């Protein structure tokens, strides 16, 4: 019997914490590949090329170009998150209300598109949205005005909603499926109509799902540089594009890190707000 296995047992049966050895590989891994790298961003963010301390990289967000890109990112990501939520909530309600709960099948349907490369899938929207593309073909068939959104912020929002919708649907679906049917019945039993039942019982009970859904859409939408590159042409610059260029083209890692810190601050802010919302209940 190996000693590590003995330890495995001791930590599994009595929680004495003797099994630190077993946790060691992962603790080491996460320290080295998660914590230290983040510290490096912090370090680069607050130093200049000579290694001297500076806050310029962070305050650079206020410069006109950066501020505009950042504001645009914030706006588009908030709009996308709201649209995703409005689309996903009814869908999750319908799916969780289905008689036969084919849980795995539903999750599969949303993960399946990921097996086709996400860049290609996003690019496909160009083909669909083009002046002579499929969608305009259908619109003109019904004598409707044609859609000219390619290379505009609207196309970027569409790309964000398309790419991140599953990340909104799945947590909502999860949260809604977990609600005991009798709890909803109890609300009706106590006199609540459909609307009251929804706002007083179903919605509050799905808050954990709403929070993780919003986070999982908002964060990648706020920080993306790919969707704007693919669907915005080179006309619409987001904060993600700015940071990416600092690293791959301008090679100003300090500035890139500084701007990343700003992004992280917003991500953390989002998490704090979520945590507070969750606590309120």
């Amino acid at each position, binding site marked *: 019997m190996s000693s590590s296995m003995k330890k495995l047992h001791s930590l599994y049966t009595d929680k004495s914490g003797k099994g630190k050895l077993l946790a060691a590989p992962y603790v080491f891994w996460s320290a080295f590949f998660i914590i230290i790298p983040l510290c490096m961003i912090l370090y680069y963010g607050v130093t200049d090329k000579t290694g001297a301390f500076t806050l310029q990289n962070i305050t650079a967000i206020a410069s006109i170009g950066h501020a505009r890109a950042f504001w645009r990112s914030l706006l588009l990501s908030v709009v996308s998150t709201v649209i995703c939520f409005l689309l996903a909530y009814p869908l999750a309600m319908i799916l969780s209300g289905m008689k036969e709960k084919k849980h795995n099948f539903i999750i599969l349907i949303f993960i399946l598109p990921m097996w086709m490369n996400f860049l290609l899938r996003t690019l496909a929207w160009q083909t669909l949205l083009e002046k002579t593309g499929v969608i305009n073909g259908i619109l003109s068939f019904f004598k409707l005005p044609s859609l000219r959104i390619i290379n505009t912020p609207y196309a970027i929002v569409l790309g964000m909603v398309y790419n991140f919708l599953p990340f909104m649907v799945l947590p909502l679906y999860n949260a809604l499926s977990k609600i005991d049917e009798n*709890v909803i019945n109890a609300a009706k*039993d106590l006199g609540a*109509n459909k609307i009251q039942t929804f706002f007083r019982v179903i919605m509050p009970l799905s808050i954990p799902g709403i929070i993780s859904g919003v986070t999982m859409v908002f964060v990648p939408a706020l920080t993306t540089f790919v969707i704007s590159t693919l669907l915005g042409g080179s006309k619409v610059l987001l904060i993600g594009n700015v940071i990416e260029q600092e690293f791959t083209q301008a090679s100003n890692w300090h500035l890139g890190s500084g701007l990343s810190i700003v992004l992280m601050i917003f991500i953390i802010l989002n998490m704090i707000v979520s945590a507070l919302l969750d606590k309120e*209940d």
Partner: protein
Amino acid sequence: MQKELIKLEHISKSFDGQMVLDDLDLNIHENEFVTLLGPSGCGKTTTLRILGGFVNPDNGRVIFDSRDITNVPPNKRHLNTVFQKYALFTHMTIADNIAFGLKIKNKPKSYIDDKIKYALKLVNLEGYEKRMPDSLSGGQQQRIAIARAIVNEPKVLLLDEPLGALDLKLRQEMQYELIRMKNELGITFVYVTHDQEEALTMSDTIVVMNQGYIQQIGTPESIYNEPENAFVADFIGDSNIIAATMIEDKLVEILGVRFACVDTGFGIRKPVDVVIRPEDVELTAPEEGTINGVVTHLIFKGVHYEMEVMANGFEWLVHSTQLTPVGTKVGIRVDPFNIQIMNKPESEDEEAVALEL
């Protein structure tokens, strides 16, 4: 008998082609404690859900207070439900849980506060207003579920196996509590359970159900002492169910031996089933009884000994306070009054019921 409050008329319901209730009729009176009793899948919960409005019957009508409410949604019905596993709103405090129905009805705040106080007092949980449901024990959550329902002053309280998740001791305590609450509130309770002891303890009327049919309706005493068929006899308590022949009025042949009984009107030389409760089987010295047998098993049960006695090819279940060791030759005697004669099942459905045994 009190005034009729609820009438179920010709109720049928099937799920996915499976018949759950078949042409069920049931009357429930004001201020009555009615228990729907039966094994799982017998249709008792479906019946309750039809009353609550959560399931629509395929056929038939639900009459409540001489009004047809078959198609009235649950939120418009003047009855409230205590659900299995409580179904409390975990995101609200106890006070908000109890106030839920009253707030929906836009009652004034002072009225609501009084009601919460009263309800918590009734269920013996004063001072729990600010707690969250998750911080309560199962028994306490159960009481809150009852409080939440009764503050709406329903005419009928529906209880769906409310004690199922509690341990034995708590369950017995809650049985007394429920009877006390019912007497205090003076409303009708419709109670669903598969636990015969619960049913016998609390009910005014027991409705024994199996496979979508009502097997027998009666007081606990009549259900226990005079089961109408083998299913009821077997489901309620232990019993010896033996195929027999009715020789003539007041005389039945059991296992080839004639016993005096008190039943009449079964005809002459008719095959019947007899039910004899184990506590009604008297053991005597051999040759002094009606049949002779040998004790084959013996278990001490606390209040009594449980024995099996082999006599004329049948293992008789016997409860007695007298120790009779295994191997003892004994006689068996049964008071004519304690021999319950039942008709053999005739229809296919009844047959199905009998096969279940």
